[in-house]
């Protein structure tokens, strides 16, 4: 009964935040027209319909996918590595994506090629480069995980991948022209607003696949909470669990980073936030909770990044960290410890 009430309340909060997010923006549109546009596809002016349907709604959908996907990835990583510091980035996935994009944007500049002639081409190329970068790291991680059984060692190898790719990116940045460097910096600040409906649908497919895989992880991850040996003695196949977790994380983080850039903080913090609020570790509760709260937090961050009264939007990555880091610090100070 309590669970039912809580779920209902969180869905209502999500809907409320979603409406709030769509109503805010540099052009003020009456709520009536927004609702009308969403449900009938028409409103008082065609510009408003366009803004609501093709800009704000796609952005809100992206925010929901990004927030829930990264939150869930963080939850998987923290339980899998039994480490409160783990997040979707620890496997080096976003660094891989970063390297791919850096090679494309800055590497092509160094070679004297220009990819920014066509907007469509450069956007698609960035998505492809980012996916390829994540994929490469994912394959490297999978190959290492065949050899290495210890999840802590895998975590450290992930961090090493991140340092390695970071160093290459630094080198590229150092030798790049300012234009290309700026493009890369923009990508690395993250963005929710650049996607068309077809891109959101592609992202949505990966998100759906990733979350579906997670459903099968609920039971074995619960067993893993008390340690690998116990999980094994309860009938969990650790290797299968390892592969499934890595693949689910890659599907979620890889696709999200490809389309929205590396979004900081959400993956690490949302699971901690939910554990501290709900006081549970059970994944059957945590998974939907993290999914919903990730979406809500991302929508709030996005609303803040484009507060009315300001002509320009603040980069989403800055908002997530500026808002999130103090909250996590406060939560840790309050509970005096952080667990997985």
């Amino acid at each position: 009964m309590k669970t039912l009430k809580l779920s209902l309340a969180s869905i209502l909060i999500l809907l409320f935040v979603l409406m709030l997010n769509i109503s805010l923006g540099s052009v003020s549109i009456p709520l009536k027209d927004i609702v009308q546009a969403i449900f009938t596809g028409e409103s008082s002016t065609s510009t408003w319909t366009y803004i609501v349907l093709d800009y704000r709604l796609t952005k809100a959908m992206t925010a929901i996918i990004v927030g829930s996907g990264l939150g869930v990835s963080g939850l998987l990583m923290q339980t899998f590595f039994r480490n409160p510091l783990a997040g979707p980035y620890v496997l080096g996935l976003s660094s891989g994506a970063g390297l791919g994009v850096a090679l494309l944007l800055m590497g092509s500049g160094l070679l004297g090629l220009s990819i920014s002639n066509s907007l469509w081409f450069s956007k698609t190329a960035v998505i492809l480069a980012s996916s390829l970068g994540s994929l490469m790291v994912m394959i490297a991680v999978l190959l290492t995980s065949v050899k290495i059984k210890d999840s802590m060692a895998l975590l450290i190898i992930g961090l090493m991948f991140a340092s390695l790719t970071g160093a290459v990116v630094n080198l590229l940045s150092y030798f790049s022209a300012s234009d290309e460097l700026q493009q890369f910096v923009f990508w690395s600040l993250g963005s929710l607003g650049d996607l068309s409906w077809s891109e959101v649908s592609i992202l949505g497919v990966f998100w759906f696949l990733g979350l579906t895989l997670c459903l099968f992880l609920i039971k074995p991850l619960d067993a893993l909470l008390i340690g690998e040996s116990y999980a094994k003695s309860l009938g969990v196949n650790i290797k299968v669990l390892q592969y499934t977790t890595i693949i689910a994380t890659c599907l979620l983080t890889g696709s999200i980073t490809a389309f929205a850039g590396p979004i900081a903080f959400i993956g690490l913090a949302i699971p901690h936030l939910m554990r501290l609020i709900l006081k549970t570790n059970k994944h059957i509760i945590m998974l939907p909770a993290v999914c919903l709260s990730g979406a809500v937090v991302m929508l709030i961050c996005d609303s803040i990044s484009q507060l009315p009264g300001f002509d320009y939007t603040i980069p989403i990555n800055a908002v997530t960290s500026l808002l999130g880091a103090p909250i996590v610090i406060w939560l840790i100070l309050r509970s005096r410890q952080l667990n997985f």
Partner: protein
Amino acid sequence: MRLEAQNLSIGYDKPRLEVVQSVNIKIKNAGLTAVIGINGSGKTTLVKNLAGLLNAQGGNILLYDEPLDSYNIKDIAKKISLVLTKQSLPQHLSVIDFVALGRQPYTNWLGLYEYQDKNHIIKALKQVELYEIKDKACSTLSDGQLQKVLIARAIAQNTPIIILDEPTSHLDMYHKAMVLNLLKDISINHDKSVVFATHEINLALQLCDSVILIKNKQVIQDTPQNLIHSGVLHELFPQDLIKFDEEAQLFKLNRI
């Protein structure tokens, strides 16, 4: 025969280290079996091998007369449950949630508990007398309570064999006796074969039906009485500090 080791040699690969050779053990029926030996003799390695957590270097382990590696991991989980030494547990994991994990081999793919599972969980909690604190977080329990919770999880798993690694470490004298009595009670009243590695040789000799002694890379299994009278216990430890008193059937400190 519930569990049997035939000519087993155990140890570690990379670097290859042979801990004990030609282990022959039989766990026939319900009863309490202690694995004793000095530090580093291979007690934990042996129980982990018996539980299927480590692979043997040679020989066979038979579970209900079939080779252990012919079972799939889920079927082993319905025959053998495991209790390991104390370790860090998630902060918010409650006693009942921890004990409930013991039902995992029986639940569906989503891990949902049915009426029968809940019955087993509650029965296990009542058996270790912790039902009243079932909603407390494991991280807030005393060592004695935590050990009982760990055992309750194994009881909830409802397997004919329970293997424990040093269930009495971290406990005071009273709680050591309490835990071993609890294990004895489970073995008698619930038809369980309980095998545990322990340093509590005095208690083990008093309570167990069978003792597995690891000494100089060799394994001897016998009843406590036979072991006591065979004289092997005299040479278990260097005799400068403690000695086995055959009359009292206990290890005692040498008087200085």
